[in-house]
């Protein structure tokens, strides 16, 4: 059972307090966008076996959505951060690369 720290209330929360929300940093495409862009936004997923940027909601806690960088192969959590973040923050990327020098943001 996963353990993630909610960046808002600072609680180290059991997975049972949380709801997963899938891949993070998706760019929304609305009316006027191409079929390909819209399909990509709504359905296509990186689904990495490795570092995965994803959405979680502290549903049974403060109710806030937040983002996490987590390895889907080892379940190591590299960090959590505010949902109001358009792309992975530098310090998180640094943390990941400190542990996995050959890793880079795809």
């Amino acid at each position, binding site marked *: 059972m996963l353990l993630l720290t909610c960046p808002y209330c600072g609680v180290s929360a059991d997975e049972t307090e949380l709801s997963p929300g899938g891949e993070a940093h998706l760019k929304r495409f609305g009316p006027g966008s191409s079929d390909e862009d819209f399909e990509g936004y709504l*359905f296509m997923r*990186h*689904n990495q*076996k490795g570092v995965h940027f994803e959405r979680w909601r502290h549903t049974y806690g403060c109710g806030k959505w937040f983002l996490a960088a987590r390895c889907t192969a080892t379940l190591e959590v590299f960090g959590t951060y505010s949902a109001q973040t358009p792309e992975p923050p530098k310090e998180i990327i640094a943390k990941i690369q400190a542990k996995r020098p050959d890793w880079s943001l795809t």
Partner: protein
Amino acid sequence: MTQSRDHLAQARKARQEMQELRFASGRFCAQICRPQYPFASRTGPNRGKFSGVSFAMRHYSVFAIVKEALGYHQGWERAWRNPTPKAQYDAIIIGAGGHGLATAYYLGKNFGITNVAVIEKGWLGGGNTGRNTTIIRSNYLQDPSAAIYEKSRSLYETLSQDLNYNIMFSPRGVIMLAQTEHEKRGYLRTAHANSLQGVETRFITPREVKELCPIIHLEGPRYPVLGGLWQARGGTARHDAVAWGYARACSAMGMDIIQQCEVTAIHRENGAVSAIETTKGRIGCNKLGIVVAGHSSHVADMAGFRLPIESVALQALVSEPIKPCMDVVVMANTVHGYMSQSDKGEMVIGGGADGYNNYTQRGSFQHIEETVRALVETFPMISRLKMLRQWGGIVDMTGDRSPIISKTPVENCFINCGWGTGGFKAIPGSGWAMAELMAKGHSPLADEFGLNRFREGRFIDESVAAGVAH
């Protein structure tokens, strides 16, 4: 134990001789028969032809067992060869799970394509084929689903005979419980749909449910059983045997099943697939089928395209074995649990999938807890049984929770994935459709399951019958 090596050495020598022999027959069969359809079957287009299987591999029967018993079973040969890859194949299937092996089998059986390799990273049948709860049913709501699952179910009916390998298909019947008015309407609708799809199902009363499954508790204080959708010819099978039976038949057709061989790259020449790179070297192919549930995105990435898929863990568990107490499969979707009893006597239990991306083949305990709680409520007698073992598998979840059997942006590269939590029951039908798609470029069973549906907004949504809002 140097001495004990002697008899082993002998056994090994015998093995080699038998292998060479089979190679010969394999080659013979491949050369002579490839132009025609070498392998007779009740269901294939070559109905009524001689049985190629019987001369290509040792026929299993009670007589063979008695004969071998006299020699303490020292004479049994390998169920499948263990070849080294050739330089080039007409078709390569990545993934020696049930779906991959079935694809290869029907390529040979229905289309005479036997110059085929099935490449497996680990050991054959070691993925979800060997990790599921072995439920077989075809009582789906939407036409395309009902079509392929019913095709699959009907192939299961005769699979033991087709493969000359007892896969223990047991059409003991499947009940899907209706526990809310809304769910009841959903299953009534499914029954109507099935009647037009040629799928035999019937909505039954609580009393009939109780008669079919005496251990069930109808009057749950929260979710009383209001009836159920009954498919009498649904049931279970021995999951490992399905993979082993297909593997044996494929090997007998001269196909190469290459285990412990990981694909590291997929080579393309002007937009078409040309070869794969593996831990056992480069292997050329005219056509490539990717059939790697759980790792579909990973392998598709090698071929340079993305999929509408997320990989999540699905868990299951078994109880200790007890004497027979349940003769049907029961699924209770409102409370998220399903249960059947294996021939060995274990209660085989499954539930909902975990919600987050995961490749570890482990899940979170609260899902096991939720499932067991639901089933203790539905079958109070299991409270005093014990959980013997829990495990997890990695399943592909697509955007509409329905599978993908499709061409891909890469020429001559096909993909079969996205079976989510329902793959085992689909193995024969999926292999049948995938083989036809690879051989002919399209298949009526597969056409609706193309990748393009996500762009068009044409979904195959089976959650419908279960329903959400009220």
